[in-house]
């Protein structure tokens, strides 16, 4: 089961991509203002994420659908 943690963009450099599902920095999705991103993993929370709030798939989908992450502008 996948677990998700939101981190600040400044913390990306501390991510060990061998311990998470995204392959590298280029595969991350950022908030619309660019200040946040999220990491996803399976199993135990990686050490470098200790203290970060863990979200389930449903919880992160709800967060990502908000205006902080998704534009509601219509083409």
């Amino acid at each position, binding site marked *: 089961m*996948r677990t*998700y943690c939101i981190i600040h963009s400044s913390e990306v450099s501390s991510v060990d991509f061998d311990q998470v599902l*995204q392959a590298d920095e280029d*595969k991350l999705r950022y908030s619309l203002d660019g200040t946040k991103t999220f990491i*996803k993993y399976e199993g135990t929370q990686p050490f470098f994420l200790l203290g970060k709030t863990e979200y389930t798939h449903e919880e*992160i989908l709800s967060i990502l659908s908000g205006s902080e992450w998704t534009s*509601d502008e219509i*083409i």
Partner: protein
Amino acid sequence: MSTLTTHTTASRDSHSIGLCKFNTTSKAIEVSDGNSWYIYDYDQFLGSYTGNSYAVSYDGTDDYHTVALDGTSTGGVLASSDTDIALTLSFWFKPSGGDIFGWQDTPTSTSPTILFTPQNASGTTYSLYYAGAYRHTFSSSEIVVGSWNHFMITRTASTNTWSIFCNGNSTPVDTFVQTNSLSNRANMTNMYFSSAYYGHGQNVFDEIAFWNSDQSSNLSTIYGSSTPGSGSPVDLTSSQPYCWWRMGDNESASNGSAAGTITNTGTSSTGSTNYDLTVGGGSPTYTNSVV
């Protein structure tokens, strides 16, 4: 079914009028006239069809695949003349929310060529943008959320007519006759699967195929049944798609493993550009939950 016997280039059989062999070195068919070998070479090798055991799942947070399938007028995969543009895109998908597909320059482009998305950022009623506008909103019976659906969009060169087909029904759910020009063609640089204007989609994709020709008359062959609603993915080898992404069936896939680069097995795969699907974001996974 008869089977040709074989020989190799280094050790061809002795000549005999009408003798027909498969050359295992060159992969060509060779026929003897008693003195010389007449060689009938293949056009393309499409790989061998191995059935359908895998699809690719996208979790709706950041997963998507992309391919630089350039349809612009400067050396793209489509005809350079706007009056000659024909295309077909076909895929099976199981949507659970979020964006489906885009053919555009960037995932958030406001000038896409084709966009298949919910009506708004959080909706599950899907709309299709093509020919410069949102032109069709799918009913809940045309695209069923949480179920496998087949989608095919075509455009003819002869009449510039777009047609949208759902689940093998030969009556399009939408048609539109465009002027010669393809709207936003200059931005037609990348295809995005499970990502488009609003963000990312929670989907499963299987058997994605693209032709730079109109295949609307081959709908039932591509769909796999003459009866709408009862088709299933079939071997598309004989339909010769320009690009064909099997979504795991030609890869070393296993259920739940990372779906990295998806190999193009279409006729263009032997050209100078591979047109493989690459991970644009997140971490898509293979699933054996297939159609």
